[in-house]
């Protein structure tokens, strides 16, 4: 409940230094506490929800680091959602590429079409963008994308334990990563399979931009597909999507038919590192120095902090990035809409990696990976950036018999 989230805040200010936009601006208006107070004022009708007031909700990265810092347990995501919904209501006009993005991911068919198109032209498009020396989004982003690397995972035969939600951007630009996750999980003894492409996007990006109606329609498709598949767990390789699946019940607050179904799905949300670590999967150790960037929503939304680190510690010479828990500036479409703030954040982080001397930056979310690729490319740092699934797949798992036995012992 929005009102409850607002009431919970006692304005202690513990969130201030956790907030990336506050740290950059030193301005209460750009802080979680300030945003909550504005939401409170607007709900009470003391402040008019004009564009100027709402701007800060647009500026918010939505990383939810404030939630982790909050002793009172304020559910900031709801406050942000309220602000973004107000913004959406005012029909703010997004840049053309952002509108195009939303239009594409809203329909599963369009995503599938985009995936096939990207396979064909992705390589050329990236080379073209690089050749033009593009730095600013959307072309700078295009230049930073990984080359299409499709991979097929054979369909699972028996009952599926973990259903992998393909997502939107994941499915277009990282389709191979989705498949590799299924392969890795099976190696670790989890019967995993990809969900059908017709499921489409989870709706997170639409909801975070305030288009809650469209997001609900998209969520219903995911819920129905999950129920039909009958899997125990639903896994997303994008931290933001995983956290949003977990929040489906909020999306259907007061909807007698859909709320319980959303709750069942939310209870089944899992994450790939958590599953692998729980299965006792052991990466084939390397000696490379690597580091890791938390996905904000994976960390602050799903509370997944230790499992990816545990895996990476065995995979190479792991060193912790000092600001690992702080947002990289990707934040959904934030880097498309606010390239300057976002660029300032990532360039500071790239310098941290340089100081650590790490050769690989491992991420857990496609948005983060892209943001880091841009940061690394533009600063000329000699380091590769990859998703944790791709990293583990390349390094390989020490296929451990015990885990397979374990899996065999677990029915279903």
């Amino acid at each position: 409940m929005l009102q409850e989230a607002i009431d919970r805040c006692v304005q202690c200010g513990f969130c201030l230094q956790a907030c990336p936009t506050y740290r950059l601006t030193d301005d209460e208006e750009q802080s979680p506490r300030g945003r909550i107070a504005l939401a409170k004022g607007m709900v009470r009708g003391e402040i008019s929800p004009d564009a100027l007031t709402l701007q800060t909700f647009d500026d918010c990265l939505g990383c939810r680091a404030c939630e982790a810092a909050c002793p009172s347990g304020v559910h900031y995501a709801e406050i942000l959602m309220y602000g973004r919904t107000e913004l959406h209501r005012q029909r703010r006009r997004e840049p053309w590429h952002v509108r195009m993005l939303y239009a594409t991911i809203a329909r599963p068919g369009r995503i599938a079409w985009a995936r096939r198109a990207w396979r064909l032209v992705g390589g050329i498009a990236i080379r073209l963008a690089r050749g033009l020396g593009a730095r600013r989004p959307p072309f700078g982003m295009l230049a930073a994308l990984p080359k299409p690397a499709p991979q097929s995972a054979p369909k699972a035969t028996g009952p599926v334990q973990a259903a992998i939600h393909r997502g939107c951007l994941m499915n277009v630009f990282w389709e191979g990563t989705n498949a590799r996750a299924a392969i890795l999980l099976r190696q670790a003894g989890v019967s995993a399979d990809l969900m059908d492409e017709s499921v489409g996007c989870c709706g997170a990006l639409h909801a975070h931009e305030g288009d809650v109606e469209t997001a609900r329609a998209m969520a219903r498709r995911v819920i129905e597909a999950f129920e039909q598949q009958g899997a125990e767990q639903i896994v997303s390789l994008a931290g933001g999507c995983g956290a949003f699946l977990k929040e489906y019940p909020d999306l259907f607050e007061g909807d007698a038919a859909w709320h319980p179904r959303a709750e069942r799905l939310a209870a089944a949300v899992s994450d790939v590192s958590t599953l692998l670590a729980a299965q006792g999967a052991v990466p084939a150790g390397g000696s490379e120095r690597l580091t890791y960037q938390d996905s904000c929503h994976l960390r602050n939304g799903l509370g997944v902090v230790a499992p990816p680190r545990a895996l990476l510690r065995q995979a190479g010479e792991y060193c912790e990035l000092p600001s690992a828990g702080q947002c990289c500036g990707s934040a959904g479409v934030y880097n498309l809409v606010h390239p300057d703030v976002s660029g300032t954040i990532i360039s500071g982080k790239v310098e941290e990696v340089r100081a650590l001397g790490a050769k690989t930056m491992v991420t857990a979310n496609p948005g983060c990976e892209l943001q880091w690729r841009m940061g690394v490319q533009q600063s000329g740092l000699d380091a590769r950036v990859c998703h944790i699934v791709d990293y583990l797949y390349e390094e390989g798992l020490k296929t451990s018999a015990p885990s397979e036995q374990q899996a065999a012992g677990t029915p279903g």
Partner: protein
Amino acid sequence: MEQSTLDALRQRFGTALKLERHARQLYGYDASGGHDMPDAVVYPRDAEDIRFLVALAHEHRALLVPRGSGTGLSGGAIAGAGTITVSFERMRRLRSLDAARRRAWVQPGHVNGLLDPVLAPYGLFFPPDPASHRVSTIGGNVAENAGGPHAVKYGVTGQHVVGLEVVDMSGRTGALTAGTVQPWADLVSLVVGSEGTLAFVLAAELVLVERPQEVATMLISFRDMQAGTDFVSAIVAQGMIPATLEFLDRAHVEAIEAWGVTHYPEGAGAVLLIEFDGLREDVVRDVARTEALAAERQALGCKTTRDPEERESLWLGRRGAYAVIARYGRRLLTQDVTVPRQRLTEMLAAVERIAEDHGLMVATVGHAGDGNLHPNFPYDPDDEELSRRVHAANDEVMRACVALDGSISGEHGIGEDKLHQMPIMFGEQELGLMAAVRRALDPDQILNPGKAVADLPRVIPAGEARATLAPRSAEEVQAAVRAARTGGAPLAISLRELRGVRPDLPNLTLEAGAGATLAEVEEALQGTPLELAQTSLRSLTLADAVLLGDYGPEHLAAGTWRNHLLAAKYVTGTGELVRFGRPVVKNVAGYDLFRLLIGSRGSLGVPVSFTFRLLPRRPETWQRQRGVPAERLWEAVPQEAGAAFAVPEDGAFTLFARVRGEASGFTPAPQALGRLADARGRLATSRSLLDLALSDAGLAQALRAAQDPPALVLPRAARVLLEVPRARAEEITQALGEAQPLRATYGPRHVELHGVGALEADWRKALERVFDPDRVLVNWFSGEGS
């Protein structure tokens, strides 16, 4: 606010100004739950900006409210109509760091918690750690005289601030200094804790502390509160002073569990968070003693950790203790009472009883080690009847604490929340005097009005006027001052009959008449495990030592009088008999008008009695190093030395340092110690003690200027004491010129040669006009001992 005012602001501040309604609304609240809305918000960047604001406020009749991160819990930063909020969020710089001297100058907007990463590589830290320290600013900490868990061992913010650069309400910029280079009264202590009502702070000089060699954190749980508080008393009774001694009740334990940052044993009704730090062997010993005590007292659980990550998670839970209680209600009223340590159990029982009487839920957390409790009452502000009950209970809690000789605010401040409860703790004379001090420094009441100290009339009681040369009671002192006032002649008085010494060992405090000598205090404490860790000359009376601001070489470890004085009762030149301070370590109610006396040379009042804090007595041992060259003297002093001095020998120095520890080491030759005692006792003869605040380069320069080596050098950190021929002293100070970062002063009973800053001189005049308008106190103080 008038258009012309806003125009002037716009012209000066441009984008560093906010006028939009929604933005102003975000600068009208703090963590207390109160809210209002200022007319404008500005972000100054330097002294010029502040002086502009002061001038503008005078000219346009605007009010100014300083603000840091808005984490205060008493409404001190709340700003309403007619005010300009002055936010220090863009004055966050660390101006300088001198690791060798362990000093840093920081701007007020510097976040407390962000100092640590800067200081850690130098092996230093800044001890004050209010729960909000990760977000709160140094300026806010200074304004509130913030405490925090580590205050039990290291003291509150005021103890770690020895210099301030301020802009006062006449628009002047100047420096205030305290401690070893303090020209007159302790004006730093007056500003620290004044809740932003006396001056704007532009920068603060912080005293840093060496990081402990070892830290051990213990989590000890008990079934109920009584067992927990009994355990606290048992620890104090053993003469252990942990770095922290924190207490959480069941409601907090459950709420923190719900937050999920840390875990406590099941069924715990009270949890203590105890930390020991220091030398490894001391920590190991104290932990072992505490563990044994926990076993003996059948604690529910006792866990000790030395792992930094685990420690951090234990602390995270404790720091969020205020806000976690928001899980129980929409609004939270948090209390902040402090009582003498041995009254803690009584106070807790009173809180329980009051809550029960009013049918309220109460969740109590506290700094048990220094008697500071935070009973939190969650409630719903829309429920009028419930709100009324909560406020009634709140009032009763404060009355109960005052009845136990405590303070109504230990660390959160008075702000606007407790302004109306000040009469619970202070009489009309004290309230009137504080208001007069405020008026003296801010005549137009521009700075943060309606907070901390109410604008009340001065009350000067009439009564018997009788000249008494050696009064036996406070009333007789009062009568003598009145007689001097009516007679128009300066007061002549001796305090030798006011010499009772009353140690309160369970509370680790001592109260004594102002005429008692330090030797008498020492005598009273003989055979106890405690001492007054302050060594002025033994023949001095307490009044002499405190009013002179005298200090011995032991100031290295123990600090000067400001670290030990907790309360004073005195008679002002107008005949008010006032008592400021309480026998508690944490007390931020009203202005600090007791530490103000330190160094005041009797010109503010005649002291009747003082209360000091005591520390566990520890054996000590001397170390000697021969052949130390002058330029290495600073670094040659052991970090933990309580005292150090050097004697010239063959072109270099022999350094003597006293360190705390088992008495097994070397003892300096009697003649060397004799030299030290003699130099401090023999005054104003052919040689002189030159007291300088110097950098390394300054020390070398001073020694060069001295030509023939001084007889004695007392080096360390900010200060060096040279014994040189008197004529040479002036030459040295002149030669030092620019290299001298602060100022020179002379030892006790010496002529002062230092140049007092214009601001300090003006404040002195203004305050003396308040405390002694008829100038009856000009002659009574000789500073010669009784």
